[in-house]
């Protein structure tokens, strides 16, 4: 790397932006990476102190996308993905005025997780693990944990404090450490805000 670092300044390939640039509503304290991908037509709202990693994708094609306070959206996560195949019960309205995805406060969406659009609600303190998939219209309760690669069917309701693990097994989280967990997230955000070069102007 040493001899050629001058000529190969950056290896990050440009992000391909296809589709319309969505209207956004940011508060001043968020961190959003330069290479995050925001597309669609609905309003994208990100509340205070949330962090959006590089290459995270927020897609408001199916309606508004709202991210709560102190959320962390990791790289390659997708919010508001168009369901494939579309659920038969729910007609897909592109560019609708409805809510596509609503995230509560302290929600973490980890690497490569997908949250499909269509009035999907993820309540406060929930962790969506690596590569997990939440179907369209699902309602995830407060402080749930979806372990990596777990799947939630479209329209499913998950009660508060549910842990989904090992290919769909469920149990209830009785540890009662939500306060501690939120404190940990706050500390993590403090560090991430210093590490991720934020560029909210790019999306405005």
């Amino acid at each position, binding site marked *: *790397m040493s*001899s*050629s670092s*001058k*000529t*190969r300044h*950056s*290896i*990050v*390939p440009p992000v391909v932006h296809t589709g319309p640039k969505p209207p956004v509503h940011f508060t001043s304290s968020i961190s959003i990476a330069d290479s995050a991908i925001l597309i669609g037509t609905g309003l994208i709202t990100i509340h205070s102190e949330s962090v959006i990693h*590089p*290459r995270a994708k927020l897609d408001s094609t199916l309606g508004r996308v709202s991210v709560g306070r102190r959320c962390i959206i990791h*790289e*390659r996560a997708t919010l508001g993905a168009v369901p494939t195949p579309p659920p038969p019960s729910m007609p897909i309205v592109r560019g609708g005025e409805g809510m596509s995805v609503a995230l509560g406060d302290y929600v973490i969406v980890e*690497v*490569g997780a997908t949250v499909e659009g269509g009035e999907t609600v993820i309540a406060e303190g929930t962790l969506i*693990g*690596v*590569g997990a998939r939440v179907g369209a219209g699902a309602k995830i309760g407060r402080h749930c944990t979806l*372990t*990596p*690669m777990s799947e939630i069917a479209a329209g499913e309701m998950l009660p508060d404090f549910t842990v989904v*693990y*090992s*290919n769909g097994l469920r149990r209830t989280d009785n540890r009662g450490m939500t306060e501690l967990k939120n404190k*940990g997230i706050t*500390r*993590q955000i*403090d*560090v991430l805000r*210093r*590490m*991720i070069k934020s560029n909210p102007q790019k999306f405005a």
Partner: protein
Amino acid sequence: MSSRRVPRGEYIETDTGNKVARKATLVGTQNIMLGGKTVIQPEAMIRGDLVRTIQAPAPASGAPPNNTAVSIGRYCFLSKGCCLRPPGRPYKGAFTYMPLRMGDHVYVGPGAVIQAASIGSHVHIGAKVVVGEFAIIKDYVRVLDGAVIPPNMVIPSFSIVAGQPARVIGEVPEGMLESFELRDLYKTVGNNPQPPPV
């Protein structure tokens, strides 16, 4: 620097023999160490920007702090769409990321997400595997496709691991150790790939 324009290949080949795809996403390249002869395929992602924020007590010699976030040995192979990111945890009242170390001859399958603390040498990680934060994988380990290795798991040498969550399901037989070598695989990719030996 030559002014002649050379045809742009799919890969950037460095002096130390690394083959890095132009379409790979390497964030924070200054904190990524490649040992040489490592292949990084398109759409692979390495988060070198997540460096540790709390330094370990500095050695007495006063050496400069080591900022490496991801270090990779020789003859590693990072397949399409995989993602390497350093693990993070609270430490002394604050949050910090810790370096991710990888030995030699490590194969990372397509779509795998690695957040391990360390991975030994001669490790085969299958497709769509998730390695949890601070997992430690020793030498000669085979992780089968789709396994989810829970955080902090330590996998001993010569194990075969599979499942969600992952468990040790067997041992690597003595005659199979050759199959962990990645030298031949290294030659089959790049700007002038060679056909695999029969």
